[in-house]
C-alpha cells in the first residue's frame, strides 16, 4: 500500500443474521481512498453502503459480522484489531458524521462540552484548553455567537446548526479521514448547500479525506472527485464522478441516472428500473443486476462479475459489467436524441 492511500478496503464481506437466513449485506467490496481525496459511495437503500461504512468504523450492529476481508487505515488492519483498540482510533484517526445529528448528539450535555470531549480524551488536553479548542471549532464551522452557544443544548439548535456541531466534533481530534452517512439528507436544500460547501472547504484546508455515503447523485458530484456505485452488496462501477454519472458504463448506473429527474435536463418521461432490488439472503447467480437488466445475456447469469478496469481508460475507471459496450451504445443513443 502506498503512502498516498489513507484507506484501503479489500474484499470486505459482512453477513447479518436474520430470521430469513444470512444476509450478505456487503459481499466482496474493495476500494482505496487517496490521502486528501473524497470518495462517494452511492446506491439505493439495501445496497450495503451504510454497512460498508459501519464496518470501517467498527460500529456494526450486534447481529452483523465481518466474515472476511481487510480494512487498512493508514496501514493498520482494523479487522484484526480488538474493539477497544478501534475505539482509540475513532477520533484522532477517523471520525463520522451521521444523517440525523439529533440521534448522534447527547441531548443532556451542553454542546460545547460535547465538542471538547474528544480533545480531552484523545489528545489529553485540560478542560480549559479543550473548551478553548471547542470554541475555535465552533467559529470554524460557522456557528454564530459561539461563546453563548457553547452552553446550549442540542434541542436549542436547528437541524443545520446541529450538523455543524457534528462537523466540529468530527474535526475536533484532527482525524485523517471522515466518514459521512447521508449528512445532508434531512436538511433543506439551502442548508444542504451551506453544509456541503463548509465540509468541502474544511476538508481541503486540513487535508482530511472523505468517504461520503448518499443516494443523491448531484450531491456526490458536488463533494467528491471519485464515486463508487453499489448494488446488492457489491461495487458495480467506479471512476471520476462526472464521467460515471454523465457517461456510465454499467446498466445499473445508467438506470439510476435515467430514473432521477435532473434539474437541468428535463426528460419527456423518466425511465424507472424494472423489478426490485435482489434478496441478499439468496442473491441471483452471476451478475446481481441481471434479472433487471435489459442487456443481460447468458454469461451474465453464470459468470462472477468483479469490478474490472475499463481497457484504455485512465483514472481508475472500472465496471463490473461484462457487456459495458451496450451501456455505452445506450448513452450515445440518448445523447443523439434532441
Amino acid at each position: 500500500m502506498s503512502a498516498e492511500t489513507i484507506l484501503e478496503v479489500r474484499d470486505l464481506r459482512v453477513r447479518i443474521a436474520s430470521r430469513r437466513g444470512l444476509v450478505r449485506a456487503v459481499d466482496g467490496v474493495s476500494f482505496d481512498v487517496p490521502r486528501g481525496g473524497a470518495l462517494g459511495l452511492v446506491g439505493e437503500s439495501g445496497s450495503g453502503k451504510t454497512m460498508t461504512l459501519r464496518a470501517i468504523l467498527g460500529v456494526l450492529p450486534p447481529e452483523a459480522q465481518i466474515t472476511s476481508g481487510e480494512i487498512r487505515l493508514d496501514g493498520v488492519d482494523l479487522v484484526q484489531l480488538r474493539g477497544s483498540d478501534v475505539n482509540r482510533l475513532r477520533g484522532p484517526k477517523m471520525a463520522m458524521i451521521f444523517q440525523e445529528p439529533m440521534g448522534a448528539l447527547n441531548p443532556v450535555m451542553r454542546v460545547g462540552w460535547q465538542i471538547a470531549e474528544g480533545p480531552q480524551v484523545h489528545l489529553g488536553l485540560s478542560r480549559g484548553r479543550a473548551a478553548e479548542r471547542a470554541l475555535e471549532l465552533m467559529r470554524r464551522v460557522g456557528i454564530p455567537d459561539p461563546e453563548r452557544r457553547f452552553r446550549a443544548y442540542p434541542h436549542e439548535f436547528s437541524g443545520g446548526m446541529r450538523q455543524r456541531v457534528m462537523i466540529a466534533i468530527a474535526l475536533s481530534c484532527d482525524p485523517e479521514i471522515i466518514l459521512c452517512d447521508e449528512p445532508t439528507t434531512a436538511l433543506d436544500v439551502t442548508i444542504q448547500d451551506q453544509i456541503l460547501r463548509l465540509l468541502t472547504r474544511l476538508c481541503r484546508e486540513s487535508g482530511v479525506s472523505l468517504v461520503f455515503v448518499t443516494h443523491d447523485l448531484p450531491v456526490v458530484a458536488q463533494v467528491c472527485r471519485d464515486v463508487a456505485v453499489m448494488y446488492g452488496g457489491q461495487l458495480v462501477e467506479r471512476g471520476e464522478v462526472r464521467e460515471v454519472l454523465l457517461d456510465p458504463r454499467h446498466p445499473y448506473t445508467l438506470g439510476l441516472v435515467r430514473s432521477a429527474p435532473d434539474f437541468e435536463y428535463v426528460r419527456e418521461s423518466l425511465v424507472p428500473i424494472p423489478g426490485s432490488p435482489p434478496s441478499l439472503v439468496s442473491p441471483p447467480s452471476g451478475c446481481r443486476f441481471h434479472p433487471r437488466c435489459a442487456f443481460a445475456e447468458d454469461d451474465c447469469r453464470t459468470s462472477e462479475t468483479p469490478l474490472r478496469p475499463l481497457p484504455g481508460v485512465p483514472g481508475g475507471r472500472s465496471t463490473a459489467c461484462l457487456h459495458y459496450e451496450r451501456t455505452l451504445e445506450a448513452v450515445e443513443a440518448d445523447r443523439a436524441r434532441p
Partner: protein
Amino acid sequence: MNRDEAAGPLLSARDVAVSFPVGSRVAARIRGEEHRLRAVDGVDMEMRRGEALALVGESGSGKSTLAQALAGLQRPDRGEIRFDGRVLPASRSRADRRRIQMVFQDPYSSLNPRLTVGGMLRELLRVHHVVPANRVATFSAELLALVGLAETDLAAYPRQFSGGQRQRVAIARALALRPDVLVADEPVSALDVSVQATILNLLRNLRDDLGLTLLLISHNLAVVRHLCDRVAVMYLGRIVEVAPTEQIFSAPRHPYTRALLAAIPRMTEGAADGSVPAIAGDPPSPLRIPAGCRFRTRCPMAQPRCAAEDPALAEAPGDAGHLAACHFAFVPAVDGETGT
C-alpha cells in the same frame, strides 16, 4: 355546473391564514414571542382546472399546512377557500371533502395496517356511496389497475407491499372518491430514486388520463420541473413568487427564489469550491416573523424600505402570470441603489 363557472379557477384561496397555539401565554409574553405560530399567514392563490401547481419552500414555510387547509384537514383562522366558485364552509360536507383528496409523504404510516387494500377501498366506497354496492368489487379492481397494481393485491395488507407499491395504494385510495383535485404532499421523498420515477410517471399519466388538477408539494425542484406547469414559492407562511415553471426557473424575480435555485446541487457543475453559499443563515422561526418583508433578514439586497413595508404579491408589468412579493422584483437595474 355551468360553463361560466368552469372558466374561473377551480380552487382558490384568499387571505388564508392558519396558526397553531404553542406553549403558554405567560412564557410567550416574557420571551416577547407570539403565543401562536403563524404557519400560513395570509395566502392568495388560484388553481385552474387540469393544471399542476407546485408548492415549494424550506421546511417550516407552511406549504404542508396550506395544503391541508385547502384539503379541509386544517381549519383556517381567516380567509376564504373557494371551490368551483363556491365558498367552502369551515366544516365541509362529505360531498365537499370528496372533491379534494390527499396523498401523504410516508406510505408506511398513512395506510391502516389492519385493513387489506380491498377492505380499505370497500369502506371508502361504501361510506361515500361512490358506486352501487354491486359494483364495488369491479371498481376497486379498476382503481388498482389504474395505479399499476394487480387485482390480486386487493387481498393484501400494506405490510406486504414495498414503499413504491404502498404509495400506489395511497394514490388509489385518493382516486377512489373521484376527486377533482389531488394534493400530493412530498409523495416521493421517502422512496428510492428508481422507485420515485415510477410514481412520478404515474402521477403524470393520471393527470393526462383523468384530467386531474394536481397540487404537488415538494422540496425537490427537479421533481417539480418534471411534473408541474406552475410553481408557487413559499417563505415563512407567505407565497413570495408564482410563475409558470420554466419562467420561474429561467427568470426568477424574488431574491429568495434565486437563492433557492442557486442552492440546488447540479450534476454537471464543478465540486462545491468552498465559495459563498447561495444563502446564509437559517430561516427565522415562524414565532418571530420579521416585520416588513419577512425575507429581509437573509436578503442580499435588503433596503431600509424592506424593514418598514411588507411587500404585497404583485404582478409583473405586462405579465399577469408572474407575481412576486418584493419591492425590487420588477424594478430594472437596481444595482446602483443596492450597494450594501
